[in-house]
């Protein structure tokens, strides 16, 4: 296991994303390649899950787009992530916020943490 970690670290790309937790609202700037053109798409939503470790660590961002819930899973190691900005720190009591999927509108709000 230890040697696998060393091997994974040899491939790791340097990244300085801000620290965030479940319940935080973040914006992910994601590079999208179309043909030979590259553009950056923003995906803003609530982090509902951080799972895995090492090169397999991922986080899931949920947002409501045109009244439809959209979730997107990003690997931390993905070279397509341009940057991550934390917009809000939320107050939540769970690590996995799957209960948000059943809630709509005002009920799906998360209290903001005052820093």
């Amino acid at each position, binding site marked *: 296991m230890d040697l*696998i970690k060393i091997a994974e670290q040899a491939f790791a790309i340097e990244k300085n994303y801000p620290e965030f937790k479940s319940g935080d609202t973040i914006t992910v700037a994601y590079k999208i390649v179309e043909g030979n053109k590259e553009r950056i798409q923003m995906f803003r939503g609530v982090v509902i899950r951080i799972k895995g470790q090492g090169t397999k660590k991922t986080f899931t961002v949920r947002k409501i787009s045109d009244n439809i819930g959209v979730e997107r899973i990003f690997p931390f190691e993905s070279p397509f992530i341009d940057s991550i900005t934390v917009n809000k720190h939320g107050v939540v009591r769970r690590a996995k916020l799957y209960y948000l999927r059943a809630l709509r509108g005002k009920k799906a709000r998360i209290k903001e943490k005052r820093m």
Partner: protein
Amino acid sequence: MPGLIGKKIGMTSVFSAEGKSIPCTVIEAGPCVVTQVKTVETDGYNAVQLGFLDKKEKNATKPEVGHAQKAGTTPKRKYVEFKSFKNVLALGETITADIIAEDVVVDVTGVSKGKGFQGVVRRHGFGGVGQNTHGQHNRNRAPGSIGASSFPSRVFKGMRMAGRMGGDNVTIKNLRVLKVIPEQNLIIVKGSLPGAKGSLVIIEQ
């Protein structure tokens, strides 16, 4: 064309520069010790015998200990002969993972995982029956006919039947070396290898 003996550590996945997730296997290759150098004069052909992983002296036979002493080393768990070394190696020389270059293709040989006694569907990829009605009884995974009747009155040799599966020597060809880490003697190749974690494999370039 160098070769090495290694130990399969396990699999992981890494992202390539293009953003593709690549499955890869980590091998701890070396340090291997040259335990015998065969030459045309003495043995009729040129080859190099490498040893990998130490064995306790109490578990080694006396001939093994003597063989290792000739090379000035301890008895090894695995000895493999390589005919393809280009440069001449000295007895007792240590070979590490950095003889394998990055971004080349290698062939890796190992012993596949034993699967036990398996039927023809698993072992030879027979289709099975695939039907449970129309008079079909409980013979869904049976092999069917294994030959004709009074002629030839026997079953041909090599007929594919149920039996022991796995535990064979398997060579995977043309695996691309993604990275070599000489400090830990690690070689990372794209794709999977035969055998369980911790099993010994032979890497040949």
